[in-house]
């Protein structure tokens, strides 16, 4: 019962993080499942006070996401983009679903570290200090990643932002 409650509470956030990082439902589910399986293996050796459970879950999920992103890059022969890929031209007659898909595509086009910063701060709603700790960067570096990511997203989604 306790395990079920723990999974009910933590799984949605882990799954959301993986989905935003990977952009693909099946891979996100695989990452979420593997994250918890690793948690169960570690459980007998857990010691209090070393790290927060949520932080640990985030870190494991992100590491697994990066493993998949590197594998994807090896298979396709493409390096992950250092610069954001410009989005397709604007189409003003978009349904809400299409807008969401375009936003998702713009997120996936971001360099992975910028996407990670946006995912942790905007979607996971972590504070800057916590997100920077997870990413093993300074708060200033995190804020720089966020600023660049948001600048890129504003540019690629400019037509949607000015539509009111």
């Amino acid at each position, binding site marked *: 019962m306790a395990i079920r409650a*723990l999974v009910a*509470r933590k799984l949605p956030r882990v799954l959301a993080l993986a989905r935003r990082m990977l952009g693909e439902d099946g891979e996100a589910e695989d990452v979420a499942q593997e994250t918890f399986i690793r948690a169960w293996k570690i459980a007998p050796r857990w010691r209090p006070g070393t790290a927060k459970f949520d932080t640990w879950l985030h870190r494991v999920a992100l590491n697994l996401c990066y493993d998949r992103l590197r594998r994807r890059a090896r298979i396709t022969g493409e390096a992950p983009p250092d610069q954001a890929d410009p989005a397709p031209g604007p189409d003003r007659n978009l349904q809400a679903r299409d807008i969401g898909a375009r936003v998702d595509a713009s997120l996936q086009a971001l360099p992975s570290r910028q996407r990670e910063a946006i995912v942790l701060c905007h979607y996971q709603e972590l504070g800057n200090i916590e997100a920077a700790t997870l990413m093993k960067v300074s708060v200033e570096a995190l804020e720089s990643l966020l600023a660049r990511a948001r600048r890129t997203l504003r540019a690629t*989604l400019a037509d949607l932002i000015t539509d009111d």
Partner: protein
Amino acid sequence: MTDADDRHEARRLDRLLDTAPTLAASPLLRERIILAAPRPRAGAWRWLTGFSLGAGLAAACAAGVLAGLVVAPSSASANLDPTEDAAMLLREPPDVSEGR
């Protein structure tokens, strides 16, 4: 562009980001994860039989009192968060670098 325009654009971007599709956890995924969770070891109290009668009875009494103290507040409190209870059972992981 003024500061107000900047803030308006930032809020608009935030709202746009919220339109990106989410992925709900399917019951199948949830059950696979739960089924993979560790189970209590069978015969966890087997060690009691290795003691003499006096030590065994004293240990059993102490265990019963402790179980009662642990269970009673949980059953009495309607506000106990089950996820906090679960976290207490699982305790905290040793290192955030685990998982590589």
